[in-house]
């Protein structure tokens, strides 16, 4: 068999391994059409979509696969997100149906086997050198340690040198802005909030 490009081999291996994921996806074929020279007809390859987002949502007549959401849960979620409650029963029904379609999609995602996989928090340099750079040791803290003095000879105490003890007064990196400029309501130098029942 003619050897396939590495990317294609890896991709198909993955789709074969996670068989249940995206179960309604049309499985891509193993072999891509090539001409006599072995080149891929890119235009033809890209002309036909092999996957649609519609596959993530339940079909029109299909029951949503997600869990049942009660009205109480909906209101709890709306409160947690500081979103306004639905105006009437129709709007609530619409919200509930949208939510269950979205949960159908989430359930599909949850089919992925993640045993032993640490959730990714953000893209960072996780190499040994990267961690070394991020480590806060003596070198990184040198400047901060220099801002302290030892006070006393018999009873030695550590004291941070404060502004006015010969420390440079300018600590902000030129952040000269008026925080109150963004205030809708203010009294003197304070932001004002009405904490009443509606507030």
């Amino acid at each position, binding site marked *: 068999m003619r050897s396939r490009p590495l990317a294609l081999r890896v991709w198909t291996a993955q789709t074969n391994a996670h068989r249940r994921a995206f179960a309604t996806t049309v499985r891509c074929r193993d072999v891509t059409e090539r001409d006599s020279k072995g080149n891929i007809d890119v235009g033809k390859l890209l002309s036909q979509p092999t996957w649609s987002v519609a596959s993530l949502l339940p079909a029109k007549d299909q029951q949503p696969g997600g869990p049942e959401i009660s009205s109480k849960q909906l209101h709890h979620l709306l409160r947690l997100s500081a979103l306004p409650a639905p105006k009437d029963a129709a709007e609530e029904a619409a919200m509930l149906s949208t939510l269950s379609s979205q949960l159908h999609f989430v359930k599909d995602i949850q089919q992925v086997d993640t045993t032993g996989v640490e959730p990714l928090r953000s893209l960072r340099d996780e190499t040994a050198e990267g961690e070394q750079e991020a480590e*806060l040791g003596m070198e990184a803290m040198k400047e901060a340690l220099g801002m302290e003095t030892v006070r006393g000879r018999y009873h030695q105490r550590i*004291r941070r040198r404060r502004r006015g003890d010969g420390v440079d007064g300018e600590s902000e990196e030129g952040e000269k802005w008026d*925080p109150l400029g963004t205030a809708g309501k203010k009294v003197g130098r304070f932001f*004002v909030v*009405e*904490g009443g029942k509606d507030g």
Partner: protein
Amino acid sequence: MSNVTLRLAPATLTRGLSRITSPTGRIPRPCIVSKWLQSRNLTVVAAPIQEAIPLRKHLKDEAKRKRAEAKSNGGTKPHAKDSRLKKWELTVGIEIHAELNTACKLFSSASAEGTDGVANTRVASFDAALPGAQPHFQVATLLPALRAAIALDCKVQGKSGWDRKHYFHWDQPNGYQITQYYEPFAKDGVLRLHASDGVPLADLNGAESIEIGIKQIQMEQDTAKTTHHRPSTYHIDYSRAGHPLIEIITLPHVHSPQTAAAVVRKIQMVLRSVDACVTGMELGGLRADVNVSVRERGTEGTGSSYSGVSGLGQRTEIKNLSSFKAVEDAIVAERGRQIDVLEAGGVIEGETRGWTLGATETTRLRGKEGEVDYRYMPDADLPPLVIGQDLVEHLRSTLPELPSETVERVRNLYGLSLKDAKTVFDLDDGDRLEFMEETIESVQRKLGRTDIDQLEIGKLVSNWIIHELGGLLTTTELNWESMNVTPGELADVLVNLHNKHITARVAKQLLSTLIETPASARSSVEQLIDDGKLRLRPLSEEQYQAFAAQIMDDNPEMVVAVREKGQKGKIMWFVGQMVRRGEEGTVEPEKAREVFDKLLVV
């Protein structure tokens, strides 16, 4: 009604009517008899004679009355309480939030100190939650946090994370607080308390000290400051938003309210001594929340457990206690309430309660249904906190003395009493102790002899520094920084006193003179003694006798009082007379006392 003063009715009539008069001494409701009496200008109630009672007497009488009352009820109350406490055991867990001593905030470079009283000045864009503003961890804030963890004997984690705790409140502009929920930076510490820290003996159970486990310490952001105005308006100051805090969570190892207050006090002292948190509870720099539960002794309560400690009752949380006394009082009140509920057959609910000063019971703030869903999640904007082991070791080796170590050292080296040692190390941010140690060394050098007991000198110097110098500072209303007596000068005075060149009275005068003289017009102690002719010219035995005889002749009644009535205390009066009448720097009170003892006790 004519303007005639009422006369007292004749005794026979009074006796007969005494049954009618109300027992509380109130003026009885007008009735036919009293109206009849009134019409004849007679009354059965003696008109109160307005006498001026001296205030002191009045206060003394009130105090006596209260004591008598307390005695009459006091027999029953503690007894009832004790039996309840024998049956029910208290368990307390404490969470302390302390403001770190840093130059900038936790995730922005806005300054963390000094407002000059103007609100909303130290606010960076991230503190005001401007859209798109990113947090940047300020590495200098790590130092006080690490020192706090090392001082409380915790294991510092090499890698810890930042998590978001979501809730909506006007003092939380971002809509979430950045804290370390899943991976705190320090875990598994211990705090040791002794009886001298205020732990009741019942808790010590015969041991020298008790150990309170510290579950973890985590760093987090502070919220903005809100002030309430009129019915429902709030003024917000974001200068405090984002200020670094550490949260210290103890295990439920505390079993009495006094111990709980002692734990908070000790933690504040320890944090202050390592310069980690220098604002105390009274200034709002340290806040405590307590979790309280009770269970019957010998049972497993409701089977609840927390962090490995099991068999506890249902706990309730009391939030925002802002003084040591409040901690103790709130726990006592909550314990009483929980025992009442359980003894009446009820069930304790896991709720959040509040406490106000002067209240007798905690108030309910939030029930279980009102529990907030914080939706903790790792913050994706911040990299994990990686702490180098070399830094931890450096800080551990250079950690300042902890309060218990200082007190022990001072007692061992200088022989101070426990009370004096605890007083002096806390005065003037440790500067007074420094002064004391320098003075002691100076005195030793000037005396030159090595056979002098350091403990003896230590006692002398410490007495002068704590009591005499302290007293002078109060009377002259100076603070320590502006006091200009140097350790050398004080050492001079005390050396002269020790060598009996001057009397104690003269020494006090010298000190007072030194404090009041400005630095420019300063002369040395020796010069002052010579100029003022203060050097002790001891009198001979005969001179003492003659002087004493003279005073005794002048005051025959006092002599009689001592000799015949046996009022030995009056001997000191004679000594005082001799000191007063004698020339400055001649009479030694101890010697005078001896002489008078011999002469008066015939």
